[in-house]
């Protein structure tokens, strides 16, 4: 048993009342796939969890005229099986398909992956490449910020404890995207290195490009020099190889249980190259 009281507001408005009532502080419970593990390891400073996993205000994947909206409590499994996500957010769909294991994908949520702020979070890496805005509510007051701006460092976000991510919104734009990860195994492995790339091409010329690398720095890395190099080009293999080298220069990996800094840096180049080739050289 976990020493915690779980409260379950029926509606979003009930969340704020529950938050005010939790005098000793609280955490939001979504999929629980990080929170429950941390609590078992004694890393739970909060005696109250507010369960937001069933709130309909945090559900739904909708395709609007100019944006795609994904409720923050949608699971990785729901995100990667959504036709709208597959069509409009290919890098995110692929990240959610390769994330953790099948039962964990049925639990873990997009909002939780973001709020947990692991530098190796696959969905969070793809969210940044796909230019997600996070819709955040604090006591009912809503604001929109770039999802990328939430990440400050490992497990450290710009969110205050009573900030609740309601949804992510994305520009609806036809583009190419890919997510590639390198783990110890093909399935069920935390990334040693990951890359998410989203690009728009017009007549073969790169007119927008976002590259993001996961697990190779304190937060998700944006190799801006590599983006700038390819922008406006009709890239071939040589330009992509140069950009991949710039990606490897942009990372600041560490040695840890999963890998070494040197291997991660070299693989950042290899994985970036593969991701850029997949997005920029495919003919269709």
């Amino acid at each position: 048993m976990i020493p915690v009281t779980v409260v379950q507001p029926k509606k979003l408005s009930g969340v704020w009342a529950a938050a005010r009532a939790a005098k000793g502080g609280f955490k939001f419970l979504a999929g629980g796939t990080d929170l429950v593990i941390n609590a078992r390891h004694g890393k739970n400073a909060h005696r109250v969890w507010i369960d937001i996993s069933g709130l309909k205000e945090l559900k739904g994947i909708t395709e609007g005229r100019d944006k795609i909206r994904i409720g923050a409590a949608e699971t990785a499994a729901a995100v990667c099986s959504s036709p709208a996500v597959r069509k409009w957010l290919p890098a995110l769909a692929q990240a959610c398909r390769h994330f953790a294991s099948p039962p964990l994908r049925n639990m873990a949520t997009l909002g939780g992956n973001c709020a947990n702020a692991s530098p190796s979070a696959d969905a969070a890496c793809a969210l940044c490449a796909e230019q997600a805005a996070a819709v955040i509510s604090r006591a009912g007051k809503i604001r929109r910020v770039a999802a990328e701006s939430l990440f400050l460092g490992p497990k450290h976000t710009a969110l205050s404890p009573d900030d609740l991510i309601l949804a992510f919104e994305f520009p609806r734009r036809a583009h190419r995207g890919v997510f590639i990860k390198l783990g110890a195994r093909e399935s069920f492995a935390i990334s040693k290195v990951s890359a998410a790339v989203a690009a728009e091409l017009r007549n073969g010329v790169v007119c927008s490009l976002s590259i993001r690398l996961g697990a190779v720095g304190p937060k998700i890395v944006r190799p801006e020099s590599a983006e700038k190099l390819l922008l406006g080009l009709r890239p071939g293999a040589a330009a992509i190889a140069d950009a991949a080298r710039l990606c490897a220069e942009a990372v600041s990996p560490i040695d840890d249980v999963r890998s070494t800094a040197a291997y991660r840096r070299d693989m950042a180049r290899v994985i970036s190259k593969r991701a850029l080739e997949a997005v920029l050289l495919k003919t269709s």
Partner: protein
Amino acid sequence: MKKTAAPMLKCVVNGVKVSRAIDSGLTLSDFLRGELHLTGTKTGCNQGECGACVVVVDGKAVNSCLYMAVQANGKKVITIEGLKGKNGDPHPLVQAFADEGAVQCGFCTPGMIMSAYALLLANPAPSRAEIKQALSGNICRCTGYEMIFSAVEKAAGLLRGRGGK
């Protein structure tokens, strides 16, 4: 902190309505094993790595060690004890695991079968690759994976033969 009244958990477990006051700090695996005495669901790592605790909630496989019991409110939970065949026979998945020698120590078996059950609900004719993918969150330390994959293929055939279920 002031102790509030124990919340009610109302759900359906293996086709039976359950309604009781529980401690909200219980995980679903704690609740199934400790309160309902459904000990077929195993807890191995207790951190979502091994898959021994997998049960099916509203048609989806979940790690019951990380799923808070109160999150099952209003939902349908199926555990290994809930899988039944026709006329008191074992469920085709259970029979196929026995026939194919897919059980060695047996500790991973309930989780394997429940992950396979969720797969077959969504995809009655999976390829071997899809079976491997669906079972990728379940670890067998006796490492009899090939027999397990064969058992799921066989059960899928048996279930299709009798029109699902």
